[in-house]
């Protein structure tokens, strides 16, 4: 059984080059993040390379320090690896929470319709027009010493309506399809219709919802870090960029501090999108080309 699922997954990946590349990039990043404590240890060689004044400050990239050191003498490579793990975590937390909430609200509203849809849509609409960032600032300032998870939850509160709105409109259009009627005359229940008839056709939208919430959260955290309201004691990719800008790292030859986090964020963005497009190709047989198999 496990083997069958595994071979099915492998075949799916082989069918789409985009999906393969996207998953590869994402996989490498997740591996880097998972092994970040080991990598940081290896770089430090016994002591903490991210400690203030661990090394001399503003060392240029070289064999000892692949990406040089920053204004406090911290190893930039170690910082980037650790920050990547933080950024991926916040993306995963906020992405999962807001996708799950968004999908549930969208399906209940879109499928049930009537006054339930009215209430849920109004609520979603209200959350959509609230200016998110000022509120996040207020919330962070109010809740001192917030953890990474709490920030994730706070960002999700304002991220799920986007997913809910797009998916709801799709549910509205899909639920009137004849195949839904056919399922109903075949004695399928509402939940069964939602899960087996509607959900598979909405996977690309759900995927996009997840990717945009995750990216929104990652960039949201960047914004909070910039004004010093991020979760205590962690360094994310945004903070490194912010440090690079405020200290003028580029003029001091410490270009990796600026370039590497941006390249990583861009790669992350590209990888998530490639996975999305790839999944859509795989799950929508019509895009697979005329011959099919």
């Amino acid at each position, binding site marked *: 059984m496990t083997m069958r699922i595994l071979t099915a997954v492998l075949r799916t990946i082989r069918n789409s080059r985009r999906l393969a590349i996207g998953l590869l990039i994402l996989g490498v990043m997740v591996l880097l993040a998972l092994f970040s404590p080991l990598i940081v240890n290896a770089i430090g060689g016994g002591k903490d390379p991210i400690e203030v004044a661990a090394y001399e400050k503003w060392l240029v990239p070289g064999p000892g320090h692949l990406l040089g050191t920053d204004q406090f003498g911290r190893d930039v490579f170690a910082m980037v690896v650790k920050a990547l793990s933080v950024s991926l975590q916040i993306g995963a937390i906020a992405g999962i929470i807001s996708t799950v909430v968004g999908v549930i609200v969208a399906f209940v509203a879109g499928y049930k319709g009537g006054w339930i849809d009215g209430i849920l849509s109004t609520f979603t609409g209200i959350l959509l027009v609230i200016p998110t960032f000022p509120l996040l600032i207020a919330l962070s300032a109010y809740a001192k010493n917030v953890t990474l998870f709490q920030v994730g939850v706070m960002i999700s509160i304002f991220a799920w309506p986007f997913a809910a709105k797009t998916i709801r409109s799709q549910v509205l259009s899909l639920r009137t399809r*004849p*195949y839904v*009627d*056919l*399922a109903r*005359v075949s*004695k399928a229940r509402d939940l069964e219709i939602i899960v087996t008839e509607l959900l598979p056709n909405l996977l690309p939208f759900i995927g996009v919802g997840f990717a945009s919430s995750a990216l929104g959260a990652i960039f949201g955290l960047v914004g909070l870090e910039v004004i010093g309201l991020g979760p205590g004691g962690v360094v994310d990719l945004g903070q490194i960029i912010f440090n690079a800008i405020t200290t003028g790292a580029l003029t001091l030859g410490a270009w990796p501090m600026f370039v590497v986090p941006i390249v990583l964020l861009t790669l992350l963005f590209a990888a998530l999108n490639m996975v999305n497009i790839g999944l859509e190709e795989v*799950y929508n*047989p019509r895009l697979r080309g005329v011959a*099919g198999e």
Partner: protein
Amino acid sequence: MKSELELRGVQQRFHARGVADGYITAVDDVSFSLAASPPQIVSLVGQSGSGKSTIARNVLGLQKPTAGSVLYGGKDIFKLNRAEYDEYRRDVQPVFQDPYAIFNPFYRVDRVLWKAVKKFKLASTREAGLTLIEESLRAVRLEPENVLGRYPHQLSGGQRQRIMLARVHMLRPSFIIADEPVSMLDAQVRKHFLDILLDFQTEHGMTTLFITHDLSTVYYLGGEVMVITKGQIVERGPVSTVMHEPSHPYTKLLLDSIPQPDPDQRWTSRIAVDELDDLEETDAQAAPAPEAPIL
């Protein structure tokens, strides 16, 4: 099996903006009944927007009428208990209009048939189920190896519509509600499809409510016919009578609108669309209102 399907004063209104009273009445006080024995074909004919598809949705239990009731075996289909509901579902099955949209593009076409096998417990083992599916596919003149394992977009419209017939063949309902099943098929496939429906009537004793806008297919099928316009049934009777001695002006108009495959019999006059509307207002009362349901 309970052997009667009856519509009693069914009315269906929809909310609409920009209309005088805020409602559009799609079906207006429609009553008729269908009997399972003897098996028969009853056609419901009307133009687009006359309410015929809404009636199909009412009969199939997909849309609850705003007034009146749909009775199956004498009971309202929206108030059936579990066992009665199961029986009704099994006994009243549709063939829909659009052979493209009826399949979920996500799945292979087999799923529709397997779902019927599983939901209605037609077979206890996989082998028995497959035998049943292959048998039904052959009954609608499809080669199982040509269609099984395919995706909907890899099959033609006629093949897809016949898969729906195979599904009906497996379930053996007493009633088939066929909502414009041939409107998207070409002439040759259409005849093929109608022949299968006639076979179902004679061989398996299925009664068909055949909804269409096309009088030539009605003529081919024979049986009884009801003419519906603006949500009301204005004429009913055996096909030969209605076709040769139409009593309602709308029926006459419909008959005049059948194109003839004969170059010497081209349409000489044009039918303006507002002519249709005028007809309704002036002549609707003049026509004898058919009171008692036929059948």
